[in-house]
């Protein structure tokens, strides 16, 4: 058990280590591609300063000790936008999947708006919210909403007929059916939607911060590019990947816990 887990870890880090080693070896004097890209050691040093450096009154660079703040801003926006997307998408998806009337009324509009990418929403977001937090949260919500609502709808539609019949037979009212049968039965699909939605949420926050707010990892990414700090750009990219990965891992843990019954089921069969 433990040794197989160690083995999995080792296998997982082989590729990244090889890539970093190659990248380091390809550079000379701390840079490659004609000076366009820094080598990993430079990125690492820049990152350490960005994360742990102490900015004094005379510090001009914004990339000293400000990493946690940037991460915090982005993560907070993703969390807020994602939460709003869940609050809208899950109940709506359950209703669409459950009721033919709601489905006929709402589903076509959703399918019609869905192809509009989040980047296309940027001008409207700027026009309405200006350069403020709301704009970013709005974009994250839009991006995460579609996969959540669509997967929830799918799950709610596929509920086994006899589960609903059994609940009706036991005297359940429509609200009981939605809460105690349709929602739990749709949970596996809902979690699929949450994972995809959260991934899109991270994409959306970076896009939004590059254009519509003046803080966070996305803002730093664009700003550092403008001032030619490619070491910070790369450190920023790695940070985005890291936090996207961690938040996805958290959802998977939550899913394993919430869907224990299902794990046993697939294991037994």
């Amino acid at each position, binding site marked *: 058990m433990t040794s197989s887990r160690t083995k999995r870890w080792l296998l997982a880090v082989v590729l990244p280590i090889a890539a970093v080693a190659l990248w380091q070896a390809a550079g000379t004097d701390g840079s490659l591609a004609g000076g366009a890209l820094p080598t990993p050691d430079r990125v690492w040093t820049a990152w350490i300063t960005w994360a742990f450096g102490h900015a004094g009154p005379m510090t001009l660079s914004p990339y000293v000790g400000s990493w946690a703040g940037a991460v915090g801003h982005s993560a907070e926006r993703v969390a807020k936008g994602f939460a709003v997307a869940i609050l809208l998408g899950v109940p709506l998806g359950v209703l669409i999947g459950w009721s033919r009337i709601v489905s006929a009324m709402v589903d076509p509009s959703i399918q019609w708006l869905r192809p509009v990418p989040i980047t296309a929403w940027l001008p409207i977001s700027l026009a309405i919210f200006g350069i403020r937090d709301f704009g970013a949260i709005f974009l994250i919500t839009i991006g995460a909403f579609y996969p959540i609502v669509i997967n929830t709808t799918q799950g709610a539609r596929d509920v086994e007929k*006899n589960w609903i019949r059994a609940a*009706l037979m036991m005297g359940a009212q429509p609200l009981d059916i939605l809460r105690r049968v349709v929602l*739990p039965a749709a949970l596996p699909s809902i979690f699929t939607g949450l994972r995809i939605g959260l991934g899109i949420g991270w994409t959306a926050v970076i896009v939004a911060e590059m254009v519509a707010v003046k803080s966070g990892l996305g803002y730093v990414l664009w700003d550092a590019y403008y001032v030619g700090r490619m070491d910070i750009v790369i450190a920023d990219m790695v940070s985005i990947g890291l936090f996207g990965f961690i938040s996805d891992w958290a959802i998977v843990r939550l899913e394993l816990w919430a869907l224990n019954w299902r794990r046993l089921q697939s294991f*037994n069969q």
Partner: protein
Amino acid sequence: MGTIQFSSVCKTYHGGVLALENVDFTVGEGEFVALLGPSGCGKSTLLNLIAGFEKLSEGRMSFNGNPVTKPGPDRGVVFQEASLLPWLNVWENVVFGPKVQNIARDDYEPRAREILRVMGLEKFHEALPVQLSGGMRQRVGIARALVMQPKALLMDEPFGALDAQTRLSMQELLLDIWQTLKTTVLFVTHDIDEAILLADRVCVMTARPGRITRDIRIDIPRPRSIDTLTTGDFTTYKAMIMAEMRGLHAHH
């Protein structure tokens, strides 16, 4: 309490399948009636109508003299595959009914515990349905119907998916329970032995469109048990019903 009545009932499904035609059929209070017939003859349809799961196309149907419009806890349904809610454990499945009906906990808890004990499930309150055998799952399915103290039990091939030995022990359990409770039971099966062993009356159905062709009273004294299966009376009834079903085949 617990009477079931069908008069001139027809059922046509979407797409025009005529599943039942002119069914006249009554189950008296406290009576155990088995519906016997080949696959696709409309046994489940009949049961789903009285359960309130399906709408009638023509005719009248009543439960305790009242027209049936929707499912309700006065008619406990036991499904073929148990159809337990897989995310709830045994205890939660059994108390689901009383809970959504807002019945006081002091009222249903002792009853649920007693029923689970009779079903031999007292050690499995915490188990999830997937962790149970088919027979145990079906016992939970019966327990969750009984805990609501229904006036009738509607059972759709409840033991059809079980192996022969488990089926025998489940039949014996059902006989024991019914002999003390005496609720009305409508029991769908295609197993002739099962029908004769359990029922007061066996109603034989034909296929397409479904009709009840024979209504046979089983005068084997109660209490019955598995030993009933080897008595002379039993064999006589079996021969009669088999002849009936073969005859139906010959006609078509």
